[in-house]
Each structure stands twice: as structure tokens, then as C-alpha cells.
């Protein structure tokens, strides 16, 4: 069974440019998460989806970040415009449902903003 797939794996952009990350969760997993991991720290939740619905986006900086999960499968996280402080690893995770909480993570996208 394939794991969580993310692309791209690496992205280097100049500040003020837009960037987008894509995630395909494990087949059959209804819950999808986006995390951000800064250097030397643990991942922190940005947004959680139950199927198509964003049920927890309290940590998402809504002035520049947006996310969508059309049809309740793949998801895209966008930053526009990017700032230097956005440099981090962006991780996508999925779980079978909110009542089955073991989460599985993708390989992440390492973003560098110059």
C-alpha cells in the first residue's frame, strides 16, 4: 500500500512569490493534516480536514496561507506571498478517521525562501 505522497520534495523561491504544495493521502483515509516543521522543532499543525471540510484551521496564517481538499482526497496548501520566515518543511499526514487517530506522514516539502 502506498504511503502519503507529497510533491515537490524541495522548493526554492524568492520572497513575495507564491508557492503550492500537493498531498495525496493514504487510500481510504478521510482525515488529512498539514503540519509545518521548523528547524530543530517538532511539527506543528496548520490545518485538519475531515473529508472536504476544514475542521481545525486555527493555526493557519490566513492572511497568506490557504488550503483546499477538493473531493475529499488530494489537498493543496498555498502560500501567497511567501516571506523569509516561511522557510520550513511542510508535512502532510493522514489518518483513517478522526476516531482512529494514528497518523501517517508523507516525506515533506522543504521550502527555502530567499
Amino acid at each position, binding site marked *: 500500500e502506498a504511503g502519503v505522497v507529497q510533491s515537490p520534495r524541495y522548493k526554492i523561491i524568492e520572497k513575495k512569490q507564491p508557492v503550492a504544495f500537493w498531498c495525496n493521502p493514504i487510500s481510504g483515509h478521510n482525515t488529512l493534516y498539514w503540519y509545518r516543521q521548523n528547524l530543530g*522543532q517538532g511539527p506543528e*499543525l496548520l490545518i485538519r480536514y475531515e473529508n472536504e471540510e476544514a475542521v481545525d484551521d486555527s493555526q493557519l496564517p490566513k492572511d497568506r496561507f490557504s488550503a483546499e481538499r477538493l473531493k475529499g482526497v488530494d489537498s493543496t496548501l498555498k502560500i501567497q506571498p511567501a516571506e523569509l520566515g516561511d522557510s520550513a518543511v511542510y508535512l502532510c499526514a493522514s489518518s483513517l478517521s478522526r476516531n482512529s*487517530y*494514528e497518523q501517517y506522514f508523507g*516525506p515533506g516539502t522543504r521550502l527555502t525562501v530567499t
Partner: protein
Amino acid sequence: GIQVEQSPPDLILQEGANSTLRCNFSDSVNNLQWFHQNPWGQLINLFYIPSGTKQNGRLSATTVATERYSSLYISSSQTTDSGVYFCAALNFGNEKLTFGTGTRLTIIP
């Protein structure tokens, strides 16, 4: 929200040694997971263990929910065990998986 603390922050061991990593959390938990982040950044699931004891090869984990801690044991360490080990906890009230700051394990040949 729940607080998660891990110790020690760094651990350097000779190959073949045993190690114990500790995770303390501030509230009751419904989910507790241990991950190994390899040098390429991939988070690998080790254990899903909100309570009790589990073993997988050279690794085992124990969570004592009433005392709000979990421990990860690695026996006969190998160089491939090197990396950062994260503990993450969640309770129904918060429904957010909160990570500790990790333990960086270095195994020397």
C-alpha cells in the same frame, strides 16, 4: 492544550548499547505516538501506544497513562537507529497531535 516534554534532548551511544527515551505529557491522552525522523526528514511510525506496552524487534515502548509518561527502549543500537525521535500526544478535548521537541540519538560505530 497538552504539553509534551522529551528527555534527554541529545544522546550519543556506542553501537550495541541500550537506550531509554522519555516522554512526559501534561494531560490524559487518547493517542500517543512515537516517530523516528531519519536523516532525510521522513517521519517513520514506530508505535501507536496510548497505554500499555508494545514491542517490535529491538524496540519497545511503554505508556503509563495514569502517571502521564511514555518510554521508548532501544536495545543493541545500530548506526541506522541514528536520527531524531519524537513523541506526540493528543486528547479528545484538544484533538491536536502535539509533538515534543525530540531526542537526537547518535550511534557511533
